[in-house]
């Protein structure tokens, strides 16, 4: 993977990398992707599932069960009048 790609992927992932990190990761990921190339030879079909064991039609009924203590959850966050405070939007 070239350094430009590493920078772009880091941006998509919201990671700030130093130049040193970029060059280390570029080399590591190049190595790893080369190893992944073995998959091009794998005689696969088109089918796949998201889980290794089929998990089908597991649904819950539309019933309300309020969480007993939302205040406990709010205390993990920084709030102002109950609103969760976040960063600038622009």
């Amino acid at each position, binding site marked *: 993977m070239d350094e430009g790609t590493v920078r772009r992927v880091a941006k998509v992932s919201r990671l700030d990398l130093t130049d040193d990190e970029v060059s280390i990761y570029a080399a590591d990921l190049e190595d790893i992707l080369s190893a992944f190339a073995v998959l091009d030879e*794998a005689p696969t079909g088109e089918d796949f599932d998201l889980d290794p064991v089929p998990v089908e039609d597991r649904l819950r009924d539309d019933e309300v069960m309020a969480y007993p203590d939302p205040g406990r959850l709010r205390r993990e966050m920084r709030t102002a009048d109950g609103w969760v405070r976040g960063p*600038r939007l622009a």
Partner: protein
Amino acid sequence: MSVMDLLAAVRDADERHRIFAERLEDPLAYEVEHAFHFSAKDNLCTSDFQARAGSRILEGYRPPFDATAVARLRQAGGLLIGKTNMDEFGFGSFSTNSATGVPRNPYDAARSCGGSSGGAAAAASMLEGHLAVGVSTGGSISCPASFCGVVGLTPTYGRVSRWGLIDYGNSLDKIGLLSASSGMIRRYLPAISGPDPLDPTSQVQPPLDMSGQIRSVAVPEEALTGLSGSMRAAFEDAVARLERMGVEVRRGAMPALRFALSAYYILATAEASTNLARYCGMRYGDIEQETDQSFNEFFSRVRSRGLGREAKRRILLGTFCRMVGFRDRYYIKALQVRELIIREYEEQFRSVDAVLTPTMPFVAPRFDEIESMSALETYQADFLTGPPNLAGLPHISIPCAYIDGLPAGMQLVAPRWEEGRLLSLAERWENGFEYRRPEGRA
């Protein structure tokens, strides 16, 4: 063991081997009536300890609920004595990628416990009668079990509810048990298994059948290449011993296994890179106080300082593998390869009861050896543990040899839902093979 003795043993083991991210320190708590003591890997949520999953970014996070597996062990009379150290979010095979402490091998403190459930394996190894709850995504139970000389069972995907498990790769993560021998695992696996309304993937399992037996195993030739000479010899001794126990051993080939590790790393990191997106300093853990920055800078700053080197590497890899233009070649292909591997195992299980390999290609490495390994070399160390994990199959690592005083394990893989057979075989093995305990064990 008296309460004070137990407390002293836990403290002593932790001080020497850095087993716990956080542990019960109040002697009075040990006085509580309990049938057994257990620990939980630090990526399992409990309301009485922080759950940092080995990461700085979760510093200070105390979950508002208990993981189902932990809650069920408490109900069964267990006392939770602490949260065990691990690679950050499970990212590693040596437990060296941790912000809360790197556990040291019970047999040689200059060596790794393996990973990512390194602390769990060390606790199982060092503490008499202890049950350690671990988690495996690509081998994180088998590997440390092998390095620390304990039994490690990784159940079928979906056997144990993942409610309360801090996700690494949701289609791969499995909660399992480690203990010095198979007895505790046999006793408490039924307690943590079973459907849970809080985890849909736990709801498709049949009841646990503990009566299964292993009469025949297949040894794929692919598993024996790349082993150290002494490991190869030790493994062949174990095979001979199994044959003497009456287990039929067939030598065969599983050519598709060579695709498994790449597919595993792609799926694991692709899923991990989305799971870790939520850690951004707004809602839990390391909360960023300075809001006067744009959201992109804010998120990037928190993530860059809170996530470790290996976490970043896996986020980059996983994000890349699912990006437009690469997604089909990597992510989708890996999903298809998983089907291929599942079929390859099914093919084996038509004629044998389990697949047998060594657990790891080598014994516990020294920390200085680990430091000189490249990222790819580290990943390749999982080549025997990756395949059953990718396929969601139950597997067990059983100590089978001691090489220069260091333990080594063998790994048996069974068909879906056949945890019982693996534990039956472990029990039979233990009747004829004596485990050596590390010094200072209590």
